[in-house]
């Protein structure tokens, strides 16, 4: 046991002392923040869209077209479609599309409306515009049938949903944005880390093998100790990295919070002009706050930077994340270790990495479709979060939506069983592989190694 401990120490210290570890630890939170802001900016260009409208129908559509938060309609310049098009092209950065109602258009024949723009118009935009036009045409029809404006307004419904999670104490309101965001973030972290550090395990083993130190080591320690020492040592590196990131993010947000409060009073662009780091952090929190703002419960007064986490089952998310990450890492990294041991150099590793990475990638992609875009508590989601090969990602993705305790426990037990199994298989392959040089291995060979004695 104390030998494993020595090995863990070595693996840990040699990695933590590397410059690349320090750089990664410092840069990654900034990169992450940067990417988050970038994505938020890109998808958040859902600033109100300006659409020029050329109405030749004589149905007064333009006059009645009401914009909303997403679209604003302005009359197109010029006296013909051609002129309007030319004018739109000139005004392009300010106007995103040109909507054309042909002379043939009437309230009864609503065909032939054209949306002109450079390139394709995204489905979301099309939907926004269609909704607005639909509403206007509907209202015009109602008016024609003799209803007055007040009646129409009374008739139109404006429904909002407040989803309340009963499994939470007191039935807290949850915010879909925060839940989905957390689900994405946690699962991609698990996916990324299993992958990155699993490959590190593989590379470590194959470096040991190619530097020919294996036999020296194995005359002192058991192959299993050497393999587990490496896996656990690298796990310790990951957790150190997590801890650093959390501390760093916490520090940054704490520093950024007062600045943020100031910049919110002024205008958001002012924050952008402030120092790079603070600004980046402030904006990140700004996007978070925007999420909270949609949640009715968000207390506007003592708005701390992490308030967006309200309404999420934080305890089970953190506990579950750590457990399922560790479990998944142990499960996959032992297989990566076996690959590193089986091949002579890393280029040969590709063919064996395939069957290991496929379940990892698939469980991520399928989980997004099944859990986030589908039903987080449906049967498929349930099974994905039970199978040890997919559960580290699927279960972590389900966590923010709330998972019944018995499912968590069952999945945890299965995962433990799973990694004991893969570790056993891997150690069988490992102990033969590390001393095998100059032999091209295939799957049949590997399966034979599993039953070697001694």
């Amino acid at each position, binding site marked *: 046991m104390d030998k494993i401990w020595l090995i863990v120490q070595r693996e840990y210290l040699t990695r933590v002392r590397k410059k690349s570890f320090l750089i990664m630890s410092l840069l990654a939170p900034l990169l992450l923040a940067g990417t988050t802001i970038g994505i938020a900016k890109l998808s958040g260009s859902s600033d109100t869209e300006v659409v020029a409208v050329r109405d030749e129908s004589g149905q007064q559509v333009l006059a009645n077209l009401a914009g909303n938060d997403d679209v604003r309609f302005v009359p197109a310049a010029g006296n013909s479609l051609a002129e309007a098009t030319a004018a739109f092209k000139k005004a392009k950065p300010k106007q995103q599309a040109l909507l054309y109602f042909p002379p043939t258009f009437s309230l009864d024949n609503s065909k032939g409306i054209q949306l002109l723009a450079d390139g394709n118009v995204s489905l979301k935009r099309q939907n926004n515009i269609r909704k607005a036009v639909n509403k206007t045409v509907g209202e015009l029809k109602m008016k024609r049938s003799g209803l007055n404006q007040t009646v129409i307004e009374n008739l139109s419904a404006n429904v909002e949903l407040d989803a309340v999670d009963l499994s939470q104490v007191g039935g807290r309101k949850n915010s879909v944005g925060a839940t989905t965001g957390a689900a994405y973030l946690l699962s991609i972290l698990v996916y990324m880390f299993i992958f990155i550090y699993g490959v590190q395990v593989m590379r470590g083993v194959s470096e*040991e093998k190619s530097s020919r130190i*294996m036999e020296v080591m194995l*005359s002192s320690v058991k192959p299993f100790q050497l393999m587990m020492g490496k896996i656990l040592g690298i796990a310790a590196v990951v957790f150190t990295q997590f801890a650093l990131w959390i501390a760093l993010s916490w520090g940054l947000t704490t520093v950024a919070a007062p600045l943020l409060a100031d910049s919110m009073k002024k205008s958001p662009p002012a924050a952008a002009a402030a120092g790079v780091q603070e600004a980046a952090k402030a904006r990140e929190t700004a996007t978070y706050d925007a999420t909270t703002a949609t949640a009715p419960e968000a207390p506007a007064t003592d708005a701390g930077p992490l308030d967006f986490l309200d309404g999420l089952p934080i305890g089970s998310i953190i506990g579950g994340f750590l457990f399922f990450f560790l479990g998944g890492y142990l499960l996959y990294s032992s297989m990566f270790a076996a690959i590193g041991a089986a091949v002579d150099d890393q280029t040969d590793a590709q063919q064996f990495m395939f069957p290991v990475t496929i379940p990892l990638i698939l469980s991520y992609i399928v989980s997004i479709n099944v859990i986030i875009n589908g039903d987080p508590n449906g049967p498929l989601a349930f099974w994905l979060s039970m199978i040890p090969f997919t559960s580290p990602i699927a279960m972590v993705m389900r966590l923010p939506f709330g998972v019944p305790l018995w499912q968590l426990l069952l999945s945890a037990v299965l995962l433990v069983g799973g990694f004991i199994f893969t570790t056993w298989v891997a150690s069988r392959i490992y102990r033969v592989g590390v001393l095998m040089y100059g032999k091209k291995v295939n799957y049949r060979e590997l399966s034979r190694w599993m039953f070697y004695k001694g």
Partner: protein
Amino acid sequence: MQPILQAIDVHKAYAAHTALNGVSLDIPERSIFGLLGPNGAGKTSLIRIITQITAADSGEIRVRGEKLNPRHIGQIGYLPEERGLYKKMRVGEQLLYLAQLRGLSKADATQRIKSWLDRLELKPWVSKNVEDLSKGMQQKVQFIATVLHEPSIIILDEPFSGFDPINANLIKDEILALRERGATIIFSTHRMESVEELCDNIALINRAHKVLDGSVRDIKNTFKTQTYEVEGRGRLMVTHPDFEVLEHKERENGHFYDRIKLHAGTTPNDLLRYLIGTVEVHAFREQIPSINDIFIRRVQETMPESLLEEARS
């Protein structure tokens, strides 16, 4: 005296071939023992069993009469033929790590590392990464790692391969010094000249079988062929009932060189008496087979037998 290491009827088979087939060895304490054999004979398999990297299928290894167990790891030092170091690790740390894995305390290890590095003139390199060292220096570090925990059994697999002559001599001296201090050294090699120079005892393994063992002197005596080398001047009779001339070389001014094999019942003195009567003798010595000759002879002799055996099984 009880042998420090015994192998008793050790068998080991892999999927495709048998590596060891009933090998038994006794290795006396404080000796230098040569484990010889052609490539693929089973030497490394036997060593890996002794170092507990693998286990024997049947048979057992005893250290001072005690069955081999994990406690013996600290008493054995092993320098494998495939040897390496962690390239990105500092020399001092690397040695400390390997010594600790062998069960040495940190304080002890640190002190011994210091004195060894001093001895082998590696002190200035203690905090350099291994990859910055020359190959010869890396080999010295590997050697230190093998003996740092003061093992009573030191196993060296092809220790001189890749060493330059200066380092090879240095290591040779260290090996002899280690034996003086009470260690037993097992040499695995197919380079015979180092065997004759260093080994007290040898065992020859070929095709998974032990084909020969004993002290170097005894083995040489057994393999003597009653052949004598004679140099002198004059005319030697080519045929004689008591001996046979195997080789005859004429040299300038009536000088000659002959190899003469005695027939059974003839002593060297009989031959000498005859020679003195006929020629002027300049040199007379017994031709002693080199380990290399014995090795080749035994390997060739045992070949058909083991082939037959394989065919039978």
